[in-house]
């Protein structure tokens, strides 16, 4: 759908994020009304930096889900990338920061290659393959690290600084998040590759019969999410400084997938946008911070989160159905006029 340049289709496509956007506005209004301090700049920037990590990984996951796949191993991949990078930094404190970032992204990319091969040439459903690699890569984190965590004073200052500064004032962490989203937006809507990705997702048989290489595209999107998860590992280290083999990236897959589906990406593939995912990440970030800020009891928090995610998805679904109805109606009216 996204690849269709028909103006009416792209009109709906633009409006698709409307439901979730509306929901975020309502949530902000409610949180702000109860506790105006929610809008303090340091609170908002803290929300954004925790959202940033989610966005980087979520951007990649969006493309994976668009191709009818899913990557459950992103949390473990992030963990392995962060751990390998942290160990290099610990043994060679003078290692250049850019080198560390590349190492993390390469480690992530290798995990992506593994997933991609299993899913494409191995023909294993991605949910099964990555459920397996989720455990295998986490095992690798323990083996590689020999069960020893990286302490904050072994993490280079330059890495920590990624979460606080950059030449243009906004932290690198947010710049990376922004770039990841823009990259996915650009690739998916402006390039031939993006069109192929969506084509494979919306109708694999048709795409293959038109000569697209299903396997190549699948491997490519898995490498893409792996590299971004590796970058996420760098940002995780920048933000939290401690890299513990058991804790690093644990359970991230749930948050990332929640963010992507809240953002309107169809879990069955074929449609989904970077902007939607960004909004989904922001929603999750606002929820986890805002509920505590407005004073919801910790015991009610999980309950409220579950309920609000459900509400967000339901409202989004409703808005979209309405839009589609209007669109169909418009077409019919047009025909009648003719």
């Amino acid at each position, binding site marked *: 759908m996204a690849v269709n340049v028909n103006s009416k289709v792209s009109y709906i496509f633009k409006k698709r994020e409307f439901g979730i956007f509306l929901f975020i506005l309502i949530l902000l209004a409610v949180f702000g009304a109860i506790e105006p301090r929610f809008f303090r700049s340091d609170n908002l920037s803290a929300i954004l930096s925790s959202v940033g990590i989610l966005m980087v990984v979520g951007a990649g996951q969006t493309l994976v889900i668009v191709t009818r796949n899913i990557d459950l191993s992103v949390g473990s991949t992030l963990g392995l990338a962060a751990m390998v990078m942290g160990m290099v930094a610990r043994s060679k404190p003078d290692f250049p920061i850019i080198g560390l970032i590349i190492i993390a992204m390469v480690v992530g990319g290798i995990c992506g290659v593994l997933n991609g091969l299993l899913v494409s040439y191995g*023909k*294993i459903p991605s949910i099964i393959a990555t*459920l397996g690699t989720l455990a295998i890569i986490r*095992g690798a984190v323990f083996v590689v690290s020999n069960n020893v965590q990286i302490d904050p004073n072994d993490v280079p200052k330059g890495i920590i600084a990624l979460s606080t500064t950059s030449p243009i004032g906004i932290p690198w962490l947010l710049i990376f998040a922004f770039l990841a989203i823009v990259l996915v937006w650009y690739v998916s809507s402006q390039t031939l590759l993006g069109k192929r990705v969506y084509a494979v997702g919306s109708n694999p048989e048709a795409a293959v019969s038109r000569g697209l290489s299903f396997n190549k595209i699948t491997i490519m999107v898995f490498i893409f999410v792996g590299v971004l998860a590796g970058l996420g590992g760098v940002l995780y280290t920048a933000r939290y400084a401690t890299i513990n083999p058991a804790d690093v990236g644990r359970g991230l897959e749930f948050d990332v997938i929640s963010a992507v589906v809240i953002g309107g990406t169809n879990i069955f593939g074929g449609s989904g946008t970077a902007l939607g995912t960004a909004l989904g990440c922001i929603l999750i970030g606002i929820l986890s911070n805002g509920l505590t800020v407005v004073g919801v009891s910790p*015991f009610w928090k999980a*309950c409220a989160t579950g309920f609000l995610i459900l509400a967000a*998805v339901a409202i989004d*679904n409703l808005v979209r159905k309405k839009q589609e109805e209007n669109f169909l109606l418009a077409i019919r009216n047009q025909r009648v006029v003719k």
Partner: protein
Amino acid sequence: MSSLIKAPSRFKVPSYLIGPILILVIAMIYGSLGSEYFLQPSSIIFNTGRYIEIGLLALALTFVIINGDIDLSVASTLAASAGVLAKMWAAGVPIFWCCIAAIFTGFILGLINGLIVIKLGLPSLVVTLATLALYRGITQVMLGDGVVANYPENFVGFDQRLVIGGNPGLPAPLALFIAASLIFYFILHRSNYGIKNIMSGSNPSSSKFSGIDVNSVRLTAFALSGTVCGLCAVMITSRLGSTISNVGLGLELLAITVVVLGGTDIFGGRGAISGTVVSLFAIMAVREALVIQDINGQVQDAVIGLLLILTVLVPRIRSYYIEKRNRKKRFNEAQRNA
């Protein structure tokens, strides 16, 4: 094992069972060679309880997954049911009625999952991802940071009871599991409902046109899944003799692993109770063989992950080579004929 391979052709082992059976056999050999303490009758008796809980969840999930849906909320449903049981017991209700209430709670929560999925037309993956948080949240609201213990003597320790014969006899959970497997087998493979279930999973729209009420079939599967969660809540409470809000955390992935390893198609339409049953025992044998040799948790997880991938991958590789050989043979024959 050899008898299995050379079995007369009228009794053919279904292909989805070969992997789990091999894993089971190899794990047994490996465990017995590795430790003299493996395969003691006492170990089988004491250890079955906690696997049977996973097994029951997996049996119910088999129905949901064959249907083309998924229920990620099983562990949280279990927790909420256990919470109701605990709260009622603490309020002085006789334990029998507490158990009934727990099972009923599971039924209702499963029904709610199904209703949301069907009425709102949302993917079950998304809905149950949200209710995973929601139901766990309800449990936290009910139990807070408290513990409910001091259950009556005759209720605690169900997993240690023996039925049929004295010592050694058949552990009660195992007996229950065998009974449940038989019942589920007849429902799925011998009843009208089972046929509808498999059909609506393999092709929902054509099933609808052939007069199957797909939605009611799906709803039934969700309710069944919830009910079994309620039953498992009773079992787990009896086994542990206490209840806290994080009971059963993370069981959903274990249960899904059992189902998938047993050959049920994650996209629905294909699967068998026998696969789930054998797969449960295979995973049990692997875990027990590893833990008795002092192998840590994440290595165990990684081995299970690897086995999960191999059970899907190996048959694919095998069929690829058979296909290649056949093609070559055909080619040679064609040449000879020419």
